[in-house]
């Protein structure tokens, strides 16, 4: 295997993926752009949601479109209680024949921040029921550690509010989470552009899950490619190890043999 493929490779719950980029399927201008953007992203894990069928939607056909080609990861978006999230996860498991779930239990509609109490309750119950739980959580090391300890397969801290595009608002917390958790860390929410994605990987996060930053870009397909490259660059930089920050200059050109007049 070449170095590039290995650089991108990471493992969640014993399953190895060839891309550190997880991408959402919502809010693209149209279906073709969505398909092209997912293609350009190189993502293998693609998120979807579970909703009531309505007479007019009558089966969106998303499962037929993506089911064979990608690892579909259902979310529990829109759930405010552990109970709703657990039933939604169970419905998703039945619909997709997968026990993987992106667990979201939100506290309010305006911030979409997680309701930690309900999230922990839902995570515990879903782990007990045999789910591979990937929880969307705060960038809080204590919550992340609790989620890891109860058996979640990864932790997915937000970098900034969902859809805000504000980037990594608390890099120091992400560093602490990296030091304290051994499960994969996937930054989920807040990434606005490729440099944000690169920064998260440079901090030692293992992957990025995003949707709006690509779907809402002027050119979603190009942004998907930019994110892919940002993630790859960030990972290389993390593995290479950055130089320490210094207040004063250090000459890169040797001074020996310079003329003196």
């Amino acid at each position, binding site marked *: 295997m070449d170095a590039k493929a290995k650089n991108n490779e990471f493992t969640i719950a014993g399953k190895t993926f060839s891309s550190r980029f997880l991408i959402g399927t919502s809010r693209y201008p149209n279906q073709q752009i969505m398909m092209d953007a997912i293609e350009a992203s190189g993502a293998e894990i693609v998120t979807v*949601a579970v*909703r*009531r*069928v309505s007479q007019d939607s009558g*089966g969106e056909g998303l499962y037929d479109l993506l*089911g064979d080609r990608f690892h579909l990861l259902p979310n529990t*978006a829109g759930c405010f209680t552990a109970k709703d999230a657990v*039933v939604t996860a169970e*419905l998703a498991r039945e619909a997709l024949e997968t026990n993987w779930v992106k667990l979201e239990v939100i506290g309010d509609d305006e911030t979409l921040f997680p309701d930690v109490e309900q999230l922990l309750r839902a995570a515990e119950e879903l782990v007990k029921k045999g789910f591979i739980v990937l929880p969307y959580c705060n960038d809080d090391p204590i919550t992340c550690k609790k989620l890891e300890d109860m058996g979640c397969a990864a932790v997915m801290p937000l970098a900034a509010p969902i859809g805000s595009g504000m980037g990594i608002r608390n890099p120091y917390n992400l560093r602490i989470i990296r030091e304290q958790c051994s499960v994969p860390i996937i930054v989920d929410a807040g990434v606005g552009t490729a440099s944000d994605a690169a920064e998260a990987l440079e901090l030692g996060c293992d992957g990025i899950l995003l949707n709006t930053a690509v779907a809402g870009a002027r050119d979603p397909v190009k942004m998907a490619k930019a994110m892919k490259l940002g993630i790859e660059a960030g990972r290389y930089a993390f593995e290479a190890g950055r130089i320490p920050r210094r207040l004063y200059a250090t000459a890169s050109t040797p001074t020996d043999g310079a003329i003196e007049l």
Partner: protein
Amino acid sequence: MSETIFINGERKLFSSSTLIGLVEENGVDSSKGGVAVALNGEVVPRADWAQTSMKPDDKVEIVHIVRGG
């Protein structure tokens, strides 16, 4: 008097005697993937749809996979 149940939160008359009929009645191709059903908060495995019948005031959720982040 006609009997009603709740389908995705709406009270409706039902004519199908089994869950599989109800799924089809709601415009879903029951042979396709990406669909799931809960009866009174419990998921009913696809294999049991044909043998599961409803009683008045049951709450049925019929869901499918849609776009999400």
